[in-house]
């Protein structure tokens, strides 16, 4: 970094090179990946031997697996210049003032309450009024026998359960980034819901104590036992600024017989981040798995939440919304694998591209032999609001059974002059009218979100659409 005696320039330098890293933290965390780094992570966490072995296996497979040649261009990722383990307290900004201006503005526009701001910038270790409320929620859960802790604690306190399911849905070598995550994972949520338990409120990461809220390589493991229900909400709609260029999470979910799980996430990483995530669930007999997936931020996102339908009458559903602005590529979709008779799946994807951004729907529906009586529908709609943006649809269907019904449909359209004219003739500005049309377009997905998320999603769309016209 340039040495200068002009304080205002120094500020600029911090912004450019990562506002969050104080010198001390920067020195403490090593860049690049090696066996030593992986061993260090494991040792720091006092992990059992089998976990270290798994991590090392992940490291080996990460080295062997090629970068995906499809999807977005990932060659710009410099794996040697990434810090693979940073303590969360060191990573997060210590105060409001340290945040870059645009992030602060966005928070203000979103109307995030002061307490939330504290949480967002300092993690949940900070004290704030709502602590009591969250504590109450934790007690209720404990009474029901629900385990809800961060993944590191999960491994320490529930090793047997953890060992049984960890890596059972997404094997170590599933893909290059799953291998990387297995080698370097830290943070995330570990949830176990005992049989016949319905959790009424959506579980959110910040209900946990002592948590590393958002990790670079977070690892989430959710087990929903028979006839239970849980709704888990990951992250939050507020933009998360991070100086790290790569985020690669793994989420594994096991939905047992008759159970139902809903997983909601709206990622809004700052637009320097490569967001390469592997999410997969297995659904047993009569179980339902629902992914609600929003992609607003990041530079590049490649994320295809999957459901493996293992038992009869299992059901998988994905609702996906993607928004790509300038310089962004949202390559998102869903994967449904039918392995048992009478299983059903549905995918609804909505994407909006503007300002030269690119959205891609990439999906797979696979109906294996024996999965007779299965049904699947895939519907993707894309909205283009200007001439320079781009939208692609790559659905993939593989049917190996005759007694199935399979449908796919896609439409790509631009915002119609008529709609704009109608709204503007009623006194709305062009910006407002455009934002309203986009909101209407994503409404089928927004209405599935918890209310506060839906409101925030709407505000985010307004922010994204600012300056989209004219």
């Amino acid at each position, binding site marked *: 970094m340039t040495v200068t005696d002009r304080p205002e320039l120094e500020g600029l330098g911090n912004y450019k090179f990562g506002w969050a890293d104080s010198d001390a933290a920067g020195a403490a965390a090593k860049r690049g990946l090696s066996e030593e780094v992986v061993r260090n992570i494991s040792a720091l966490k006092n992990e059992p031997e089998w976990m270290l072995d798994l991590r090392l296996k992940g490291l080996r497979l990460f080295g062997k697996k090629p970068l995906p040649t499809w999807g977005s261009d990932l060659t710009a990722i410099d794996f040697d210049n990434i810090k693979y383990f940073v303590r969360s307290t060191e990573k997060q900004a210590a105060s409001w003032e340290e945040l870059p201006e645009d992030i602060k503005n966005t928070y203000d526009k979103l109307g995030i309450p002061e307490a939330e701001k504290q949480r967002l910038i300092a993690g949940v270790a900070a004290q704030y009024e709502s602590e009591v409320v969250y504590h109450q929620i934790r007690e209720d859960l404990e009474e029901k026998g629900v385990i809800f802790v961060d993944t590191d604690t999960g491994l320490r306190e529930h090793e047997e359960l953890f060992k049984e399911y960890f890596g059972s849905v997404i094997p170590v070598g599933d893909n290059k980034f799953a291998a990387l995550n297995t080698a370097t994972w830290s943070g995330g949520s570990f949830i176990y819901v005992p049989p016949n338990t319905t959790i009424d409120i959506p579980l959110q990461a910040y209900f946990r104590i002592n948590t590393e809220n958002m990790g670079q390589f977070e690892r989430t493991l959710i087990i929903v036992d028979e006839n239970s229900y849980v709704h888990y909400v990951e992250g939050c709609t507020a933009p998360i600024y991070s100086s790290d260029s790569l985020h690669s999470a793994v989420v594994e979910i096991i939905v047992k017989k008759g159970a139902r799980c809903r997983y909601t996430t709206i990622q809004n990483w700052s637009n320097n981040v490569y967001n390469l995530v592997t999410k997969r669930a297995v659904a047993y007999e009569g179980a339902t798995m629902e992914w609600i997936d929003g992609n607003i931020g990041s530079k590049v996102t490649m994320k295809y939440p999957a459901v493996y339908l293992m038992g009869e009458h299992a059901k998988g559903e994905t609702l996906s919304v993607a928004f790509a602005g300038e310089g962004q590529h949202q390559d998102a979709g869903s994967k449904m694998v039918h392995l048992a008779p009478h299983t059903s799946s549905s995918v609804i994807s909505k994407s909006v591209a503007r300002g030269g951004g690119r959205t891609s729907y990439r999906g797979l529906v696979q109906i294996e032999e024996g999965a007779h009586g299965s049904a699947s529908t895939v519907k993707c709609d894309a909205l283009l609001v200007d001439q*320079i943006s781009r939208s692609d649809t790559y659905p993939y269907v593989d049917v190996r059974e*005759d007694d199935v019904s399979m449908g796919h*449909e896609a*439409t790509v359209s631009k915002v119609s002059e008529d709609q704009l004219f109608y709204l503007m003739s009623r006194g709305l500005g062009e910006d407002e009218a455009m934002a309203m049309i986009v909101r209407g377009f994503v409404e089928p997905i927004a209405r599935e979100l918890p209310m506060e998320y839906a409101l925030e999603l709407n505000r985010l769309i307004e922010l994204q659409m600012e300056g989209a016209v004219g």
Partner: protein
Amino acid sequence: MGLNEKPLSTLHEKSSYNLDDFEVPTGREEQWRFTPLSRLKGLHNGTAAASGHVIVDVDAAPEVTVETVGRDDARVGKAYVPADRVSAQAYNSFEKATVITVPREVVTSKETVITLTGSGDGAAYGHIVIKVEPMAEAIVVLDHKGSAVYADNVEFVVGDGARLKVVSLQDWAADAVHVSHHHAQLAKDATFSSFVVTLGGDLVRLSPSVSYTGPGGDADMSGVYFVDAKQHLEHRLLVDHSEPNCKSNVDYRGALQGEEAHAVWIGDVIIRVAAEGTDTYELNRNLILTDGARADSVPNLEILTGEVAGAGHASTSGRLDDEHLFYLQARGIPFDEARRLVIRGFLGQLIEKIEVESIRERVMSAVEAELAR
């Protein structure tokens, strides 16, 4: 930003006249992963020597000229550059090409029928150019028969404001292998309609593609296929919209019956930055009639401009609708007859679009024969 460094479209395959620019496919490539290479009888790896014959017989309308030309004729290979290994092999291996020209402003009085008959004695390669000069109108039928191991390229060059209707029948003997590219190049305000009927052959891989050289072009591509046990019938479409205000519409329907009946349909559409006002829709429907049949259906869409009139695709695969059958049975029609009626309705909607009556009747009776099995 990374985005700009990538090739503009991932659907646009590379093209070259040179065989060496294409690696011998291994079956792992996106382009080849559905095709059982071992059944290509060497067409893909250069081992199929041109020892056989496919006899080209033209029954032309009186207004058109038919020529048989050598490899060096300037009109050959003008509109289409081979886009995969087998088409490059065909381009480098054919000896005589057939060039059919419909002169300027001429409306032909009857259809031109090109019959290609395989003699069943080894591999053969071919090339056909059909040139419709500005403002002319013609109907061309390609009728493939007999037993053959055949790779060819067919170029349709449709001039300004011209209209060309093509019917291509793949009515091969059961052991035939046919790999073919049909490329249509549409000039300003040209209209092109193609109707593909694929019934016979052990393996047929047909790749119809369309490109535009001026605004206002309109391509309508339909297809019907009936796949029986052990047959592999593959159709790979590519419509490359590079000019403004052009249209394309794709509608392929197929029925599958019997063990290891395999249908593949790929429908790629690119809308490039310049192609504002494009209107495109693709549809593929597969009706799976028995156990053990497999249908792969992959529509892909790449859109590089926001200024489109409409773009979409749809794909369905499934078995006969029980409700349809029940409806007919409730009116006293026996199950077998009801089933036949529904399938006939499903394919018949398309078959009705074939303008040449004799061909339409032949296709309809072929479908009837398949259903009677």
